[in-house]
């Protein structure tokens, strides 16, 4: 690797375009939002940065918004747990099958990443709506069993526009993200340790809980953070599947900027989301650092 001073011209030629673009079209916009978060509205169209902390106070102290933040956190946490429970056996199986199947299954896990999030969310509407596939299937079962003669006609379940729909949508969209780090850590796991545990008299269940899970903990932590962060900030899924009944922080932020026209408050909310993201990333880096320190 060359020292930059030895090739100053080449260094600046490579450095300037990317840095400039990042500063103008990424850092400057973020800086504006950050400054706005300390501002207040002085008229319908104008805001002034006054250094007030009122926006943050409003976000963290008003029950309505606190409720939305709290709901975003527990919905994301629940959906993350759901992802983990669903993804672990999948990752486990993939790391035990032969090379050919491994490639096919991994490709099948990765492929949905490339399908537009909007389209995947839209696909779920057709599944969950009142005249959707789930209700259609349930109705068919109901009528096949002649339950309609006993209990009257089939009442479709209201599956859309509630917390359930948002949680299911989050799990559906983010589950593949969970499989990859889990797979990476199960793949690295020394399988002879499992054999040793079984030989020494532990059952499959004990081996799983006392050997496999602790040794794949790095993958579990990594997967949880990888999935939890984008869930917390998701906007499209609660917007399309949750409607007005199940809103998350992302929807409140969107409303401040698009319809309520309260930029300072929206800015404060989005920076709270940024700080939460950075905290989670720092946690992940800290966990990784401790792991590598423990291995030395």
């Amino acid at each position, binding site marked *: 690797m060359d020292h930059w001073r030895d090739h100053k011209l080449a260094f600046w030629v490579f450095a300037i375009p990317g840095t400039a673009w990042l500063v103008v079209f990424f850092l400057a916009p973020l800086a504006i939002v950050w400054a706005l978060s300390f501002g207040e509205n002085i008229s319908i169209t104008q805001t002034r940065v006054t250094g007030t902390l009122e926006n943050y106070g409003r976000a963290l102290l008003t029950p309505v918004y606190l409720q939305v933040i709290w709901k975003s956190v527990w919905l994301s946490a629940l959906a993350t747990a759901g992802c983990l429970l669903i993804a672990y056996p999948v990752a486990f199986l993939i790391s035990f099958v032969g090379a050919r199947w491994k490639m096919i299954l991994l490709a099948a896990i990765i492929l949905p990443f490339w399908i537009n999030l909007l389209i995947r969310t839209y*696909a779920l509407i057709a599944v969950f709506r009142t005249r959707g596939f789930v209700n259609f299937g349930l109705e068919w079962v109901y009528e096949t069993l002649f339950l309609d003669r006993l209990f009257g006609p089939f009442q479709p379940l209201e599956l859309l526009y509630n917390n359930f729909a948002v949680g299911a949508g989050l799990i559906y969209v983010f589950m593949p993200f969970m499989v990859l780090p889990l797979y990476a850590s199960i793949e690295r796991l020394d399988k002879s340790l499992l054999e040793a545990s079984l030989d020494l008299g532990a059952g499959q269940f004990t081996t799983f809980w006392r050997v496999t899970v602790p040794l794949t903990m790095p993958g579990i932590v990594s997967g949880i953070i990888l999935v939890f*962060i984008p869930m917390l900030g998701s906007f499209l899924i609660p917007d399309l599947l949750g409607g007005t009944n199940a809103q998350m922080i992302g929807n409140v932020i969107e409303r401040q900027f698009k319809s309520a026209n309260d930029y300072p408050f929206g800015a404060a909310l989005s920076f709270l989301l940024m700080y939460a993201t950075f905290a989670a990333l720092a946690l992940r880096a800290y966990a990784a650092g401790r792991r590598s320190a423990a291995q030395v």
Partner: protein
Amino acid sequence: MGWLRAPAGGPLDYHRRWWLRAYVGLVFLLLYAPIVTLVVFSFNDSKRNIVWRGFTTKYYWKAWNNDSLFEAFTNSLMIAGVSTAISTVIGTMVAMLLWRFRFPLKSAYEGLVALPIVVPEICMGVAMLAFFSRVTGFPTDWPWPFNLSAITAAHIAFSFPFVAVVVRARLIGFNRELEEASRDLGASEWQTFWNVIFPYMRPGVVAGALLAFTLSLDDFVVTFFTSGPDTLTFPVKVYSMVRFSVTPEVNAASTVLIAITIALTVLAMRLQSPARVG
């Protein structure tokens, strides 16, 4: 169904357990069923889109003849094309910068470049909205395609870090002795770059470009906040249609987008596969 009854093998042959296979099969079924039904029902000859009423391609024609949808589609392709060209060049330069040079605060700079990848999309979206509503020079009433410049600039900002990551990963495998040999044999720095380094990193650059194209074509959140009423992109237009109703026309439009992105992804994967290293 022989595999169902296959003996469970050794204690570690977890992949031979039928219940684990059945479970994973079910997960994949649930993962793909909604998308497959979406595609299948884009050919359904029924406006209400619930029961299968026969095969038709008329909704594809309808989507094709929907002027605003078509315009959104051309906008998307235009934005993705320009964004890909610029972010591939910038991203490749950043990758070379990080690969080649030692400089003060390098790890901080790496973190900075990775920032657009980790920042929540909604935060980036509102930042773009706040920025472009204050900065003049990106008016949306300019003639096409210059009215799309704000969206394009935003797309480049989140695409080029991905290009940099992909190209840099490719460059790590480069043997720098080749570069020294080229210099020793009298090639100039530019000749060495163009004839030795670039051919080696080309698969990475192409894969990065395809990634940038897909990211731009697929982006909804950032575009949603950057676009004006006359600068709709395909995902933003589909979003407004989805909010309105669930119709086969939306399914047809979605299927087209799925087909394009999957084709590009398969191409990118083939270009990156180890078999083509050389």
